[in-house]
């Protein structure tokens, strides 16, 4: 924000000069926080409360917190009881996804100065904190130096390699993406999309495995997935699966009963088998327009939006095996199915909102050109509706990512579930704060990452969406 002052007299009397604009930190502070007495009061109150909280938190984390609960349990928090000797597969999957994310960013996104600084700063912290800590090794306890060497340094040195690797993957991907974009933007974009579609199942197979224990990719039971790995797999599979389902539900709910075919029965038609066939074919071709489909979609959406997610998890967990008379269906798979079915109802409503926001002229123009209803949906209405719906869709995906923490209730050990079992160990009694602060930070980092990526995606629309009409 900038401050404008009264226009000054120009050199030539006839021309009006542009108002002088004050820039700089002070002007910005004044404009945003200290413009009116009310602003000043508000700013001071917030500063006092916020500062107090911050000081308390820092005091706590230096004098009392003991982060060894994180450092000793780090692997189990990240991947549960996934076999340690197979851990490289997870690393590979993560590296692959990060690399493609970097490429996409290079092609569609932009590197903002703030982002670049954040990267550089993060990398420096991860390199220098452990180094600095070593030189402070024998500081008296209770001081900041002791805190640094005894508490933070192990955490940072634990995180250093993975973080540096990820940042490297991201930046290499970014560079590749920028380079590819310069050569042929269209083709680069298309190949990146294909890469995503290939990478998603590949990563799933990498994590799950399929061969005998001595094969190249030994099968790992889902009961051994845990921690952040399980959280990711649940969210990932559910997001990928609920999206198309939600779109179908939205289209079903928006469908109407127009273009019905009439069966004009000639006299004595029941004596003629050919007329029967004709009647049958008309019934069949009308099927897509039957209000029953619409009704089913409405019932599905409204019902699932009307019950809490936990009940859906319980239902999937208890009733489905009962109904199928078979207890062997994987608990993780059951949770994935429940989450997918539940979230699809929300996605459907978001997509429907996008479809309804379109001017009716779009569909009319498509019809007038002779496009079939399916073509009009695929080429005209759906792409525009999804574009409009990006912000709420991403919001829903983030909600979904956080909703996975509810699986702890049905006994799965996702990040939250496993943190509770870690807290139950006798040597870490009473270390709830450290654990939950850590868990919150992990959820925040990924949720914020998603929302940041989505904002970049929205901006990439360039000329296409500058003005609708």
């Amino acid at each position, binding site marked *: 924000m900038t401050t404008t002052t009264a226009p000054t007299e120009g050199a030539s009397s006839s021309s009006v000069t542009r108002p002088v604009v004050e820039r700089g930190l002070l002007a910005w502070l004044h404009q945003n926080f200290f413009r009116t007495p009310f602003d000043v009061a508000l700013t001071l109150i917030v500063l006092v409360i916020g500062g107090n909280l911050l000081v308390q938190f820092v005091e706590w984390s230096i004098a009392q917190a003991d982060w060894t609960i994180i450092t000793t349990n780090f692997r189990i928090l990240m991947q549960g009881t996934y076999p340690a000797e197979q851990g490289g597969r997870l690393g590979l999957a993560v590296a692959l996804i990060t690399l493609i994310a970097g490429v996409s960013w290079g092609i569609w996104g932009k590197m903002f100065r703030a982002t670049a600084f954040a990267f550089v700063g993060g990398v420096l912290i991860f390199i220098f904190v452990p180094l600095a800590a070593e030189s402070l090794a024998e500081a008296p306890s209770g001081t900041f130096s002791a805190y640094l060497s005894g508490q933070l340094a192990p955490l940072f040195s634990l995180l250093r390699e993975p973080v540096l690797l990820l940042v490297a993957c991201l930046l290499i991907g970014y560079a590749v993406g920028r380079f590819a974009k310069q050569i042929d933007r269209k083709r680069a974009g298309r190949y990146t999309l294909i890469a995503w579609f290939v990478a998603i199942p590949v990563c799933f197979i990498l994590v799950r495995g399929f061969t005998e224990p001595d094969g190249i990719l030994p099968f790992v039971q889902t009961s051994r997935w845990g921690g952040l790995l399980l959280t990711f797999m649940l969210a990932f599979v559910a997001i990928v699966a609920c999206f198309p389902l939600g779109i179908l539900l939205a289209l079903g709910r928006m469908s109407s009963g127009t273009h019905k*075919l009439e069966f004009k029965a000639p006299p004595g038609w029941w004596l003629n088998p050919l007329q029967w066939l004709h009647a049958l074919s008309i019934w069949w071709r009308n099927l897509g327009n039957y209000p029953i489909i619409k009704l089913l979609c409405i019932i599905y959406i409204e019902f699932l939006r009307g019950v809490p997610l936990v009940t859906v998890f319980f239902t999937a967990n208890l009733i489905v095996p009962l109904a199928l008379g078979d207890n062997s269906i994987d608990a993780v798979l059951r949770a994935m199915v429940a989450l997918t079915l539940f979230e699809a109802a929300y996605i459907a409503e978001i997509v429907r909102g996008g479809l309804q926001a379109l001017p009716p002229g779009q569909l009319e123009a498509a*019809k007038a050109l*002779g496009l079939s209803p399916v073509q009009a949906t695929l*080429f*005209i209405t759906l*792409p525009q509706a999804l574009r409009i719906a990006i912000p709420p869709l991403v919001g829903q995906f983030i909600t979904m990512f956080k909703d996975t923490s509810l699986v702890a209730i049905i006994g799965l050990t996702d990040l939250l579930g496993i943190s509770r079992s870690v807290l139950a160990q006798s040597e870490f009694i009473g270390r709830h704060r450290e654990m939950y602060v850590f868990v919150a930070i992990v959820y925040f980092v990924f949720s914020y990452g998603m929302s940041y990526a989505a904002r970049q995606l929205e901006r990439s629309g360039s000329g296409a969406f500058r003005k609708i*009409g």
Partner: protein
Amino acid sequence: MGKQSEPIIIVRDLHKWYGDFHVLRGINVEVSPGEVVVICGPSGSGKSTFIRTINRLEEHERGDIIVDGIRLTNDVRNISAIRSEIGMVFQQFNLFPHLTVLQNITLAPIWVRKRPRREAEKLAFELLERVKIPEQAHKYPGQLSGGQQQRVAIARALAMQPKIMLFDEPTSALDPEMIKEVLDVMRELARSGLTMLVVTHEMGFAREVADRIIFFDRGEIVEENTPDGFFHAPKTDRAKQFLANILSH
């Protein structure tokens, strides 16, 4: 004109209701191939509704519409056959904002007419030449002026090589200096022998280009006349009043 050939559009006793509101009350019209018919009338008289029933953007409840020998029924095949014979241009342009100008024009030829992409693009460039904006092919609609957008919309409709073009107030959403560039294109189309039904308040255009003028009021055709007859010696009082209103400003 038109007596020697079969009519390309036949509308008989057409009725339509919106709920209880009787919008179209028994319309009878025949249009010969190559004829340019201008439809005018006060706001709310049912002009838009009428031309939208011809390509089935609105369903009618009674009467017959026969276009190029095909009777409009609920049969999906008839509807799509008729729609690919008829091009339509809207007041609000209705270009697809997420597609470039070229993609807007080639979409229907490629997917409905099953033309090869190369051929469709060649035709698209010819049409853009014809509406005088060949240099805008790779822009998005949002980057064009209103007059340019409407000319793209005309090119998009022409790309299906329709026998009939419907125009619903194509210049009403345009600034005065852009109206002329659109009307010029429409004049050229009329000369080329395309059958056109045009709803418009541009009386100068009607006088110059129309073969026939149809005057609508309250869902009925009140007067059908030649342009000369309509403007100089309207037969009905309602038409006289309408002309007085519209020419007074």
